[in-house]
């Protein structure tokens, strides 16, 4: 049905284009008037008038169809649901949905539920059909409207261009909408979490063990939601990563920008880019299956107790991942230092390394700091390496040989697997996400500002 509809809509739009163009041409030929714009613009005018209302309807309808249909279903089976709390209702709805799509349900469905499921799939089909019909009707209506307005005097090009401009502008606001969406959804879910757990406990608590709070009626269901150990673990791993990435990345950048000739650079740059293009899940696999066991065995052989999910393994591999990031950013920054600066130093008889250390690097310092800040933000937000190679239990420790957990690991463990959405456990993930977002945002804003200032200085 969807395919047929898509074809119908495309045909309609094409038809609109043809109709608009031919009407303009006919008007010209009939009255001998001069068209204001090229005939194709009249076609486009009609096509846009047809396509935009239809597309808008499709977008709005499909965004809300699911929610509305579910509300209708739930309204139907109110007696079934009486006495259930919000999360139970969610589960019931899940069952209905699964039943309707032929999936597996959590328990044997009652007749009422089965009926609801049948109604649900009925409604969905009807809704879809209705959406298609209305969309086509709207499109035809738009077409009709445009068709009647087409005359040689119509400034079709200007109209079309204005529409295009509006579309361009709207698409550029998507970036804002995304940020807004992130902030809103995180703040909204996190505030629900903070309604259950005081924010001070979250920010300053030293205990993190959300596992206890799986069921609301369980003893000790409050759990412990102190984010400090989680955050400390994140910092520890990020710190280790930066210990690896900062010197190697920086010196690589210096070598590439100042010493390597063009040929060497031409080879090294793509190779480092390969390192940058490797997906993090691959690094995670490498960390969990190769680096961590190697480190543990190495530790064993010299009598050190290294956990098999040590912060060191995850941090070191994360550092490797960040090397190309640091080096390419620093490379840009170092290359941006004007060569007059270098010449001035060489002209005084400085050696290359003296020039780099005493002139180029101090000049590039703000940019390098910015680059490192961005790298830190990257390390903090990195997920797969730590999910695969770091631990789950929140230890408050600075020992790199012990296992620690991170913000991202907790988010993933809290949100994967089946659980109801409203427990503090899942909501805690959003609180952590908010924390993560805010911290990285602050780092990014500072870093980007520093780098921008730096660029302006030498532009």
């Amino acid at each position, binding site marked *: 049905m969807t395919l047929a509809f898509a074809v119908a809509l495309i045909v309609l739009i094409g038809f609109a284009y043809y109709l608009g163009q031919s009407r303009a041409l006919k008007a010209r030929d009939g009255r001998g008037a001069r068209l204001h714009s090229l005939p194709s613009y009249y076609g486009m005018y009609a096509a846009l008038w047809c396509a935009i209302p239809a597309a808008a309807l499709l977008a709005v309808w499909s965004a809300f169809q699911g929610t509305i249909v579910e509300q209708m279903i739930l309204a139907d089976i109110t007696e079934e649901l009486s006495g259930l709390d919000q999360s139970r209702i969610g589960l019931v709805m899940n069952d209905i949905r699964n039943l309707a799509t032929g999936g597996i349900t959590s328990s044997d469905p009652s007749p009422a539920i089965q009926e609801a499921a049948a109604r649900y799939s009925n409604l969905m089909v009807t809704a879809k059909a209705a959406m298609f019909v209305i969309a086509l009707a709207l499109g035809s209506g738009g077409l009709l409207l445009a068709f009647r307005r087409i005359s040689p005097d119509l400034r079709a090009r200007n109209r079309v261009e204005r529409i295009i401009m509006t579309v361009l502008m709207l698409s550029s606001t998507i970036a804002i909408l995304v940020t807004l969406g992130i902030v809103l959804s995180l703040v909204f879910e996190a505030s629900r979490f903070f309604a259950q757990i005081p924010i001070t406990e979250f920010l300053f608590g030293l205990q993190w063990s959300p596992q206890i709070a799986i069921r609301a009626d369980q003893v000790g269901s409050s759990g412990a939601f102190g984010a400090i150990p989680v955050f400390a673990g994140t910092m520890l791993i990020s710190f280790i990563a930066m210990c690896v990435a900062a010197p190697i990345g920086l010196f690589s950048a210096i070598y590439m920008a100042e010493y390597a*000739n*063009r040929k060497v650079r031409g080879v090294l740059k793509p190779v480092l880019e390969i390192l940058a293009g490797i997906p993090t899940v691959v690094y995670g696999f490498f960390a969990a299956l190769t680096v961590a066991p190697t480190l543990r065995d190495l530790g064993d052989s010299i009598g050190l107790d290294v956990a098999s999910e040590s912060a060191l393994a995850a941090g070191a591999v994360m550092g490797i991942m960040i090397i190309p990031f640091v080096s390419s950013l620093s490379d840009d920054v170092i290359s941006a230092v*004007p060569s*007059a*600066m*270098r*010449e*001035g*130093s*060489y*002209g*005084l*008889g*400085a*050696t290359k390394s*003296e020039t780099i250390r*005493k*002139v180029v690097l*101090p*000049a590039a310092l703000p940019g390098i700091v910015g680059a490192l800040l961005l790298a830190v933000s990257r390390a903090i937000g990195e997920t797969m390496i730590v999910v695969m190679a770091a631990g789950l239990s929140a230890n408050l420790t600075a020992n790199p040989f012990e296992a620690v957990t991170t913000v991202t690991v907790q988010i993933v463990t809290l949100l994967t697997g089946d659980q109801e959405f409203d427990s503090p456990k899942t909501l805690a993930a959003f609180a952590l996400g908010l924390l993560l977002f805010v911290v990285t945002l602050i780092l990014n804003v500072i870093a980007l500002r520093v780098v921008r200032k730096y660029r302006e200085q030498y532009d």
Partner: protein
Amino acid sequence: MSDQTQTGVPEHAANAPAAAPTPTAPKARADGRTKMKARQVNVFYGDKQALFDVDIDIMEHAVTSLIGPSGCGKSTFLRCLNRMNDVVDICRVQGSIEMEGEDIYDPKVDVVHLRARVGMVFQKPNPFPKSIYENIAYGPKIHGIVRNKAECDELVETSLRKAGLWEEAKDRLDQPGTGLSGGQQQRLCIARAIAVQPEVILMDEPCSALDPIATAKIEDLIHELRENYTIVIVTHSMQQAARVSQKTAFFHLGDLIEYGETETIFTNPKDEKTQGYITGRFG
């Protein structure tokens, strides 16, 4: 002349202090010893040849100006004199350039040491993003010329005084050099070059980025510096060459067309190309 260059080093050592009590007129000094001697210098950028068989003798304690239309190779030649071209990957230099009888392109010659003896001032003022003090102290510090803070302070002051910047800068030594005006920045760069106590100072169009007043100040400074240093200056302005230099070399398309006393070049050029250039027919 060759005799002089061969015995250049000891003679210079003997001459330098002797020169002080008898400051002679600039003109007379210009006929002095040969400080640097370029022979058959060819420079290539990749496959392209930028200089063809250039022969020049640079006189001690004189200002030699290199003039010519843009792209004529004058800056390239200047940069050969302290081997700044080494920095450019694709640049090759053939021929010999001797300083005090020693070929500066000899593998034994240390380029760092050479540049300490042959300082350079660039077209655009390029102070380091450091304080004024640090800008001046940078050279002496890396070369180990100063041994302690007192020596360093003293050297900074002397250099700034010589560059005529002391009065303007003495109260703001710890402020960034980039905060000075363009002319001040260029004098700072000259002071920076002097601080290493070079024998020769190369100036690559030092006034092209400056306004007339700042230019005049720099030109005065060049006059004073000639007392103690050998100066080679590349300039676009013929008036400037006429004002500041004793010797002038005219380059055209990589060839050295004419070289001689500034007066002669400007009043009675032998080559018609030179004539054409200085009368403004091309350039």
